[in-house]
């Protein structure tokens, strides 16, 4: 269970999540400080460590559109946020999954800032409103990467298998 700490609208681009001017920062240990850098309130709370791991960020349609910059996923992963959206843009979704960021596709989600959410199997429960919303499962190809613990581990296993054969 976690709280919705941030709620955003449609078409939130990777330029908003991780502005281009910080793109020379590449290490996953250093990217989190610039998360939503142009929103000084939310960014300030993150950097003040006021947002606990497992908190929810709720987006709407086309979340993560735009650039392929992986920092947009690695910064969110750094804070261990859970990202819920009606629909994600393709590259951002794949980047998040590759890095082990928890991404929930929930086409009918209704949740406001401050609501308590809980993931229960294939359902996302809004404890505050008492409503439940169906989660769209990731296709098996993406789920396999999640199950492996991310694409690094997934690829390492494949590499070892190929070298053996």
């Amino acid at each position, binding site marked *: 269970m976690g709280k919705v700490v941030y709620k955003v609208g449609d078409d939130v*681009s990777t330029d908003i999540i991780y502005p281009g001017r910080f793109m020379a920062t590449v*290490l996953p240990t250093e990217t989190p400080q610039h998360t939503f850098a142009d929103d000084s309130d939310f960014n300030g709370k993150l950097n003040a460590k006021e947002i606990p791991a497992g908190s929810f960020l709720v987006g709407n349609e*086309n979340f993560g559109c735009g650039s392929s910059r992986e920092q947009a996923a690695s910064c969110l992963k750094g804070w261990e946020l859970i990202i819920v959206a009606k629909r994600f843009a*393709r590259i951002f979704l794949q980047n998040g999954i590759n890095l082990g960021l928890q991404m929930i596709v929930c086409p009918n989600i209704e949740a406001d800032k401050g609501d308590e959410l809980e993931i229960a199997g294939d359902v996302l429960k809004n404890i505050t409103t008492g409503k439940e919303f169906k989660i769209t499962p990731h296709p098996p190809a993406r789920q396999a990467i999640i199950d492996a613990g991310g694409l690094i581990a997934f690829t390492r296993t494949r590499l070892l298998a190929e070298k053996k054969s």
Partner: protein
Amino acid sequence: MGMTYVQKVLAKACGKESVAVGDVVEPEVDLAMSHENGTMAMNQFLKIHEGTGIKPDIWDPNRIAIIFDHRIPAESAKTATNQKNLRAFVGDQGITKFHDVRGDEGGICHQILPENGYVRPGGVVVGTDSHTTSHGALGAFAFGIGATEMAAVWTLGHVLNVEVPATIKVNVTGKFPEGVGPKDLILHLIGKISSEGANFKVLEFHGEVIKSMSTSGRLVICNMAVEAGATAGIVPPDEETLSYLKDEAGVTDKIVIFSPDADAEYIQTVEIDVSSLVPQIACPHTIDNVCGIDKVAGTKIDQIVVGSCTNGRLDDIETAALILKGKKVNHGTRMLVFPATWRIYRRAMKLGYIGDLSEAGAVVCNPGCGACLGVHQGAIGDGEVALATTNRNFKGRMGNPKGFIYLCSPAVAAASAITGVITDPRGGK
């Protein structure tokens, strides 16, 4: 049931007779491109090998391209160090398609790849840049991936877990009116189907307008396919593709081209007649916020940008130079021009375009991506308005979340530079 163009490419890349939409495949990669963010791919690549006892050697030094273009020459010590580390990696691994910060062979990756003949029809191209969709203009299945996915490609030589995408057929008919072209077409299409209208899908372009379009124009429409969310844009290769590769890219080996099957299944067909299309403008802050120029004509502009992987080719520079020759950039407006590569820059110099633009008051900068994404040169001030031939108008894009960006064709940009307000380039309109 027949196959779409991308199904055919993927079947070939997987050594299969056919693939169906939704199949999960692991296509072999023909070209894997990164720019400065190859630093991240490099870090992840080394991490994959950690603890395996396997020496971290890339799968094929001839099929990886590294092009420095986002921040050149380096704007900070951090970037310079990233570039230094990646340059050393390129040397150690023997990567052959490396374009450093150089005035002879440097430039923006999405123009370097086609003009050097690195992209071939029917190939699979991946790049750690969303505008990798550009290379569909030459009939490759080309798509953007993240750095970790690239590290997996460098390790294994194929892309893991690609779902065969459904394809939207875009049939473009009619004839462009004077002053209207490929950029207006793609902005119009994005406005029509929305910024996620093609998410997880491929846009396959057909029709007489595409047939008679130059490779430069095809690069514009495929470049911005991603702005409709598309995994890739595709122009099925034809005689134009073959002559571009031979004459412009200097490719001498034999190239086999193929077409989608006549009975291929498309998830959707979009019909566009360009005969009555007017210059299109994407207004702040989303790319699908598109209107005809009449609606926003007269809007005051602080900075004009002509360039980027979308519109920095010779025909774009030529369009701007011909409009501005003998005229002046309005004194309330700044104009920046970024030719996409140094090859284009030199040709534009020989043809006198650079001189014409400079005399008009435009600042012709070195080829690079910096201004488009606000990482290097050309930032806009609080409340300022930019009119750009680039591909994104997201809030914060040109280095300032308090700025406003309109997107347009090179003709609109140049005509507006003279007046200082958004101006229709069509004479007398």
